[in-house]
C-alpha cells in the first residue's frame, strides 16, 4: 500500500520524491472505486511491456456507460498506453505485449479470434493533433461507414454524414462546403471533424488522447461542450494534462503514476479531497 500520511511542512511532496527515484511503483492496490456494476469496458490485470520494460502494472479499471472517465497523471505514467490498449492500438508497436483481460460489453477484445477492424469501429479514437484525412469533409466522415459497409445507399450515407457533423456541432459551419478539403478547416474545426468521423460508425466507446492540447480556449470549450453532449450516447475516456479540463468534463477520474493506477474516484472527490498523497501532490502542482 502506498503512503497516505500527511505531507511534512515545506516538503515538495511524495510525488517529487518518487519521481526523483525514477522507479515504477509496480503493482499497487488502487484506492477508490475502480470497478463498476455492468461496465461498458472492463479491464482486469492489464499489464503492458515494451520489450523488457514494463509500462503498465496490473490495471483494474472499469468504464461506465454514459460516463466520461478522465485519465490523469504525469508524463510517462502510462495513461496513453492504457487508452491504446482499449482499441488495440498497441498492436502496431513492435515489441509491445499486452496481458490481462479487456472486455467491451463482455467480449474479450484481445481474443485470438477478435476482429480488430470491427473493434476499431466500436471504439473510436481522437488524437492530440487533429488528423483529418487528405480528403473532402464529406469523405472524411463517409470513410468509416463505407469501409464497414454500414449504408445501402448514397442517401443513407448523406444522412450519416449530416447527422455526424450535427452531433459534432460542425454542420452549420461546413454544410455549404462539404466537398472542401478537411485539412482546410481551423484546428478546432478539424478536431470536431475527427470526432464526427469517429462517431459516424456509431461506436460504443470514444477514446480521446489530449484532444484539446493544440486548441485555443474557445475551440477547447466547444470540444468540452461536445464531450458533455456525446456522453448521452457513448462511453468516453479522455487523457488530459489539464486538471481543469479533467474536472470540467469528467464524472470519474483515474490517477496513474509510474505505470500504476493509484486512485480512482468521482471527479468531485478527486479534486476536492483525494485519498492518496500522490494524487494530492499531482493535482495541486507539488511536482518536481
Amino acid at each position, binding site marked *: 500500500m502506498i503512503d497516505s500520511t*500527511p*505531507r*511534512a*511542512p*515545506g*516538503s*515538495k*511532496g511524495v510525488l*517529487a520524491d518518487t519521481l526523483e527515484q525514477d522507479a515504477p511503483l509496480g503493482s499497487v492496490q488502487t484506492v477508490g472505486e475502480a470497478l463498476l456494476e455492468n461496465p461498458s469496458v472492463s479491464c482486469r490485470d492489464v499489464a503492458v511491456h515494451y520489450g523488457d520494460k514494463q509500462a503498465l502494472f496490473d490495471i483494474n479499471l472499469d468504464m461506465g456507460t454514459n460516463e466520461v472517465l478522465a485519465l490523469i497523471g504525469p508524463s510517462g505514467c502510462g495513461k496513453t498506453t492504457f487508452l491504446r490498449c482499449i482499441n488495440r492500438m498497441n498492436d502496431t508497436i513492435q515489441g509491445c505485449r499486452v496481458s490481462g483481460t479487456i472486455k467491451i460489453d463482455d467480449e474479450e477484445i484481445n481474443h485470438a479470434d477478435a476482429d480488430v477492424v470491427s473493434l476499431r469501429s466500436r471504439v473510436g479514437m481522437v488524437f492530440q493533433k487533429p488528423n483529418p484525412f487528405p480528403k473532402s469533409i464529406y469523405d472524411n466522415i463517409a470513410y468509416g461507414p463505407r469501409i464497414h459497409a454500414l449504408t445501402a445507399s448514397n442517401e443513407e450515407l448523406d444522412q450519416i454524414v449530416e447527422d455526424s457533423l450535427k452531433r459534432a456541432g460542425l454542420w452549420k459551419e461546413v454544410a455549404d462546403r462539404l466537398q472542401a478539403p478537411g485539412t482546410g478547416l481551423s484546428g478546432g474545426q478539424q478536431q470536431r471533424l475527427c470526432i464526427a468521423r469517429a462517431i459516424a460508425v456509431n461506436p460504443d466507446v470514444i477514446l480521446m488522447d489530449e484532444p484539446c492540447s493544440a486548441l485555443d480556449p474557445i475551440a477547447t470549450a466547444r470540444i468540452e461542450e461536445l464531450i458533455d453532449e456525446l456522453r448521452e450516447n457513448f462511453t468516453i475516456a479522455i487523457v488530459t494534462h489539464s*486538471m*481543469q479540463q479533467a*474536472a470540467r468534463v469528467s464524472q470519474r477520474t483515474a490517477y496513474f503514476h509510474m505505470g500504476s493506477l493509484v486512485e480512482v474516484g468521482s471527479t468531485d472527490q478527486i*479534486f*476536492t*479531497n*483525494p485519498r492518496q498523497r500522490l494524487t*494530492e*501532490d499531482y*493535482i*495541486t*502542482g*507539488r*511536482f*518536481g
Partner: protein
Amino acid sequence: MENPIKGHTVESFNEEMQREHKTVLEMGALVRSQIRAAAKTLQDEDPAAARKVIDDDAKVNELDNEVAAHVEQILARRTPVASDLREVLTVSKIATDLERCGDEAGRLAKLTLHFFEHPDLSPNFQLLKEVSTVASFVEMMLQESLDAFDARDTYGACEVIRKAEELDGEFRSALRRLTTFVLEDARTIGQFVDVVLAVRALERIGGHAKNIGGYVVYLVTGRDVRHETLDAILRDLAK
C-alpha cells in the same frame, strides 16, 4: 508553528497562500484585542477608549477586504484544488467570521458610550460583571480556534466546539442572574436589556469561534461538520 502550505512547483503560489494565512492570523489578533479593549472600556468607564475600539473596526474591515480580494485573485489565477482549495475557502470563511466578531466588539464598545456619556444612565455594576466574564471566555475561544487553524489541529478545533456548548450554558446562567436583578429592582429594566444585548453580542463571537473550529476540521479532513454534533465529529476523527 509553520503552516504546511508549501511545496508547490510555482513558488509564488506558496507565497500567496502563506500571505493569506498570515493575514487571517493578524486579523484574528486584532479582533481579539478589540474584544478585550471593548470589555475593558466598560470596566474603566472610558468612552474615549470605546470610541477608539469603534474606529479601529475599520482596520478589521480593511483586512477582510484585503483577504476577499486576494482570495478572488487566487481562485481566478491559480484555480486551486483539493487541500489548496480548502485552504483558500477556509481563509475566506474565517475572515468573514472575524469581521463579524469585530462588529460585535464595536457593539460592546457602544454600550460604554451609552452608559458613560450619559451620567443619568449610570449602570448597575453587578449587571456589567456578566459582560466581563463572558468577554474573557469568548476571547479565549477565539484564540484557541485561531491556534487550531494555524496548527491544523483538529482536536484543538473540537475543544473550541466543546467550549461553545459551555458558553451556551454560561449565557443562560448569565440571563438567569440578570433576570434576578430585574425582579429585585424593576428600575434596572433598561440597563438589563442593554447588558443582555452585550452578552448576546459576546455569545455570537463564541459562535464565530465555533465556526472557525468547524472550518479547521473541514480544512484537514475535507468534511463539512458545521451541522454535526461534537460526538459525531470526534467519532469520525478517531476512524
